[in-house]
């Protein structure tokens, strides 16, 4: 093609794929019978999900008293998990929207799965604010709808209400974005399918014909949605951080929370994307689409955001000391040295110390290290939320009311259940839709790195293998 020969830009898709090969590689998993690994995984996921559903029903039947929260620590694993899942749900939008606007073409290899992950993570997250309510059956009180009680509106001052709007907006936009991307791919599946399957995919693809007009509109829509999503990446976790920052509780009442939460969210989101991608590319044999380059790029983001988070932790400590305010000072003293010191230690180690390994290039490109690191970060970010929520609440202003908290079997069950929900959805997703955006990958096959002549260049001149 007309491209300039590049000695530095490595190919985004390796393995000298043809367009047809791409279609085959990416669409065929939806057409074949599931593998044994998939089946086992699916059974486990559904079983865990069922247990989670039982625990949720148990909570609703018995009451929040089936959890181990108490008069001092009124939020525990529920909101910890909520913030954690919401954080994980951040990578999707970031990859889809911001990287699209920044023309980061490597995003196409991972954006589909990341977006799916976002949606499923937001679903898991959204569950917690619902079930943590004492009277879930009156949950509609939180919605601003005209009613016969005055009308009585919700409290627009409350960050919990902002949460409702932030999360529902985020879920809607993410869902639209994801689905928009899927439309041409569904059409591809349809074109290869027969009978009922064809009809279903025809409906799902909204009668996509691949006409120039369709592509033009599709491109415009993607761009518009990217524009809409970009502020959301910042706003959702900013608003989630307001749940804490607008309170009067020492350790919560800090202005640093919005940026710190956003960085943390991207950090954990990328970690989760890596965890999933590393498994998926292996299982679905997508090493050519999700390459080491992708992994390295994401590790760079992790290094940056992890360091931002680390700076935020240290800033918090400094400000606590600098404030000269005994409650603030004690809150942070207590986090680090108090009864939950292990969670603070875990947070610091997993989130700040361990990602520093990624300064070394070979470790950034090492799949085993990356995978372990992604797990570390997931754990560390969970600890961070636990530290912020439970540790802070356990010892606030009045020593008389200090208490401790550890979860009950129901709370653990619900958390496990969200994994069940997440993986059930994800596994179904891998069976019904291409996990890599087929149309978008085809789009970059020829523009990114096609003319690469550097030392890692394939021996054959691949421009001779143009499409059939």
């Amino acid at each position, binding site marked *: 093609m007309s491209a300039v020969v590049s000695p530095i830009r490595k190919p985004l898709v390796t393995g000298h794929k043809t367009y047809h090969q791409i279609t085959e590689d990416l669409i065929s998993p939806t057409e074949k019978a599931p593998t044994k690994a998939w089946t086992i995984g699916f059974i486990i996921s559904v079983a865990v999900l069922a247990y989670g559903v039982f625990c949720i029903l148990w909570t609703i*039947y*018995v*009451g*929040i*008293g089936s959890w*181990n*929260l*108490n*008069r*001092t620590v*009124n*939020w525990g694993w529920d909101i910890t998990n909520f913030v954690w899942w919401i954080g994980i749900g951040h990578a999707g939008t970031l990859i889809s929207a911001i990287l699209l606007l920044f023309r980061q073409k490597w995003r196409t290899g991972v954006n589909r799965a990341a977006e799916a992950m976002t949606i499923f993570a937001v679903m898991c997250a959204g569950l917690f*604010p619902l079930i*943590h*309510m*004492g*009277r*879930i059956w*009156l*949950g509609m*009180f*939180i919605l601003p709808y005209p009613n016969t009680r005055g009308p*009585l*509106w*919700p*409290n627009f*001052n*409350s*960050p*919990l*209400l902002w949460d*409702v709007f932030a999360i529902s907006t985020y879920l809607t936009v993410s869902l639209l974005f994801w689905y928009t991307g899927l439309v041409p791919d569904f059409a591809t599946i349809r074109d290869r399918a027969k009978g009922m399957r064809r009809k279903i995919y025809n409906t799902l693809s909204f009668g996509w014909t691949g006409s120039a007009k369709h592509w033009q509109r599709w491109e415009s829509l993607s761009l518009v949605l990217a524009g809409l999503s970009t502020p959301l990446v910042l706003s959702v976790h900013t608003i989630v951080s307001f*749940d804490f920052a*607008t*309170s*009067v*509780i020492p350790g919560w009442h800090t202005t640093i929370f919005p940026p710190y939460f956003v960085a943390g969210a991207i950090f954990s989101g990328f970690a989760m994307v890596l965890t999933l991608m590393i498994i998926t590319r292996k299982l679905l044999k997508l090493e050519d689409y999700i390459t080491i380059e992708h992994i390295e790029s994401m590790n760079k983001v992790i290094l940056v955001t992890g360091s931002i988070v680390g700076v935020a932790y240290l800033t918090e400590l400094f400000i606590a000391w600098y404030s000269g305010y*005994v*409650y603030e*000072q*004690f809150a942070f*003293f*207590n986090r*680090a*040295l*108090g*009864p939950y*010191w*292990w969670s603070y*230690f875990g947070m610091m180690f997993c989130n700040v110390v361990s990602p520093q390994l990624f300064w070394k290039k070979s470790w950034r490109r090492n799949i085993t290290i990356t995978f372990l690191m992604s797990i570390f970060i997931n754990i560390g970010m969970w600890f961070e939320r636990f530290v912020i929520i439970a540790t802070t*609440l356990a010892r*606030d*202003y*009045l*020593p*008389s*009311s*200090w*208490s*401790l908290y550890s979860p009950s079997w129901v709370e653990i069950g619900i958390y496990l259940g969200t994994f069940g929900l997440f993986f059930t959805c994800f596994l179904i997703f891998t069976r019904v839709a291409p996990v890599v955006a087929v149309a978008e990958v085809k789009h970059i096959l020829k523009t990114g790195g096609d003319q690469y002549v550097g030392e890692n260049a394939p021996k054959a001149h691949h421009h001779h293998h143009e499409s059939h």
Partner: protein
Amino acid sequence: MKHQIDNIWIGQKDLENDKDFIAESNLEVSQQAVTAADMTEHLAGNRRDFLKFLGFGLGAATVAAGCDIPVKRAIPYVVKPEAIVPGVANYYASSFVNGGDFCSILVKTREGRPIKIEGNDLSPLTKGGTSARTQASVLSLYDTNRVASPLMKGNEGWKSSSWADVDKMMMTTCQSSGNIRIVSNTNMSPSSKKALSEFSAKYPNAKWVVYDPVSYSALLEANAQNFGKRAVPSYHFDKANVIVSFNADFLGTWISPIEFAGDYIKNRRIDDVTKAKMSRHIQVESHMSMTGSNADNRILVKPSEQGVAIAHLYNTIVGGNISTSGLNDKAKKALTKVGGELKANPGAGLVVSGSNVVAEQLMVNAINNVLGNYGTTINMSVTSHQAQGSDADFAALVTEMKAGSVDLIIVMNANPAYDAPMAKDFAGALAKVKNKVSFNGTVDETTELCDIIAPGHHFLESWGDVEAKEGMFSLIQPTIAPLFDTRQAELSLLIWAESANVDKINPQPYYEYVKNNWKNTVFPVQNKVSSFTGFWDSCVHDGVFNLDKSSGSNSFTAVTISGDITKPSGKELEISFFETVHIGNGQYASNPWLMEMPDPVTRTTWGNYLAVPVNFDGVKTMVGFQDLKDGDLVELNIGASKYTVPVMQQFGQMPGTVAIALGYGRTGAGATGNNIGVNINPDVLLMNGYRQNFNTNVSISQKTGEEKDFSCVQYHHTIGVKGIDTATGKEINADEAALVFFDYFTGVKGFQGALTERSVVYTAHVNDLANSIEGLTKKRKHAQHLNEQQIYRGFDHNYKLGHHWGMHVDLNACIGCGACTVACMAENNVPVVGKHEVARHHEMSWLRIDRYFYGDVENPNTIYQPMMCQHCDNAPCENVCPVNASNHSSEGLNQMAYNRCIGTRYCANNCPYKVRRFNWLDYTTADIFPGNQPKVAAESTPFGADNLTRMVLNPDVTVRSRGVIEKCSFCVQRIQEGKLAAKVEGRSLVDGDVKTACQTSCPTGAITFGDMNHKDDLLSNKLESPLNYIALEEINVRSSVTYTMKVNNRDKSLDA
């Protein structure tokens, strides 16, 4: 256009002042007829609509029919009773009596149900104060364990009987019996005593034996020797400048705590800081009692050193050479000093002792006599009847019973098979008594062993009288018809005695009996009212009658102090047993409100805990005796007995001693009271026949496990106790050091200042008051300055317009007795959650009393801080509620709209005072799912799920459902009631119209509630004290509750 109004208008017609419209809108019910034409239009429809409605209706009916909604019947009055206006409470003066416990009360009834107890201001004794026990007594009226009819024991257990059968049987039994013994606790009722004497007159073999669950025998005996009167004197703690108490818990349990607390605090509160003066209170004890926790100084002596400690003071003051070997040196030195101080305050000191050794009480009397305290702080001319029991009489009874010489025993409001010092012997000997009758209202340990239960009324169903102190009469009047087929115990006695003074045909024979007794005894000796009817009516109305007794003599007859005093055991470990403020010696164990009330000192509920000494290891740990921690289980060996008990690290517990509460481990206290804690009564010692509440033959195992439900409501007990750092030898803040769980190998000794710099409580010494006030003022000014630096205007201007409710809590008056906490539960329908839930920190109390130890780690001082919703005018709970369930009234009240609450609990997280309570489970047993109601203990029906217990609920206060937040409302129902009353009377509210439940229950007047906009009221007056502060003022929540700096009068030289 007609004249327009400039007020609020609805619609154009209103705006234009349309006459017809105005007339129409003034009518309560619209007079506009609904015509047939309107209806057809409204209901117009066709076949399709009809089918739609039919389908919907059928579907809705099917869904609705699936839910089983219980039918609840409410029957209105057909004929309105004269005294009852539905929705308006009636108050009746009466008296709470149980053994020696007494309180003059007003009983609040609603639609004929007693629902709340208030203090009676007219009583010269209790002066409107109450106790936790008094407050909770209304619940025992609705106890599901009450015996519903006379019972007789058959082969297959208890069988219902009739009064006629019981009377027939008893009359023959009484006739045929040789020795008849009536056993009771202290009885202060003149009419009851008359009935007893009539019974004894009829059956000359009958004898009345009095004992008390916690004995005052030796005190009575000593007074008999010194004054010729076997009685308790009047104590005047208000007149004493130096109070020395040897293990007498006079603020909590000893003789007349409500009276003593009221008096005590008069000389302790600081009304004018420029003339600050307070008594010095020195408590000599081993275990931190509630009274000890209020003391300025505590001198620690082991239980067996009590005798020599008194002897040492006796030697110092009276002179004498009684051996005091075995008394620890520190106590010896301190007591010598105390002796000097007492001598420097002649006639203004007061020495009291809880000892039950005659020689020790004789020494105390001699000390008081030499100091000239008789006639000033102690008055023997007006004696109290609140303790009458005799250990010797009871021991004699047991001997008689063992010998088989008692034919009939009648148990009258006593439970000796559980609480007597020789309970086991008594229970065993009971088998040798031919006939056993109990008047007790529940099947307790003693009643279980009887053959006949002739259940007496609850005091709220009874007529009766009380003479708690000579000449201070009170009446008991019924406030509800007997709920069950029970009968006044005295009436039963009179009927069995075939008394001529009982008119059996009269519907209320005992009423007539009491009335006649007063006509013959009290009425003639007074000269205030000339007609008996007038006299009687005023007595019933007031509940009290005070006979001005001309002061008699205080003449002291010196006697040689002979007889044994307690010998120091010299053992490494001793245990003391104590009566708790709420449970007593088990008399109140069947009352869930009292079981759930935290012990003021330990803050534990539902059970007795072994208090072990705790000390700072000099590094960073608080080490309990044998490394035991709160909630650890140990095996406690006393003599041959073994108990498995949980441990509580108790600050102020003397090293080498442990302590455990009496009154637990009952087996006859009903499902909610049985087998909670352990019964330690079998191991109290007897010395020369006198009950001694300690034991020296004790050992404690290492930790054997952990208590399943460690139901303590406060985990952190201290706010800056100081100890010595072993590394540097310097004094550091021990509990701040102990907050470190892991120091990353840095050796960090806590964050010094983490607790002491909190703006939660402030303390001062009375001699250093000016400095402390200056510091406080400076700190407050700084906080107020910061609070002004904001852009948010707030709504303060609103609160200046009408009422602005506020509260003042005088921490110098609060003794921590907990009456307010129980009063709050009763007033506001606060649910009882039980041991397991309390252990999970799910207690629901709206008002709690935080207790902090400060000062010396080994021998600290104590602050009690009642903590309830602070009704912040810039409330952090309000802005975070997503549905506005937590909101603010224009009168400064922080309100909860329960129906709106969806239970996110953000408000509870964001409450700096942690006073918000969440209904974690279905505590009120009112949920749609019947299977999810938690049990309080081992009861078969969850507590409160039955209609009997629910009768205690206050109909003015919503019962909260599962999943909603609740909290102190400043008794908004009382505010509303006060406003309505004022409106009906066409006046504005005045001071005292509205009093909260906690305020009225307080025996020391520590709580003042009122309108902060009324500048002449008591509240505004109190708000001017420079000792005042607002907890956490600098976070600018603008709370409406003001506390005072806690002032002590500790003599540091006694610590050396």
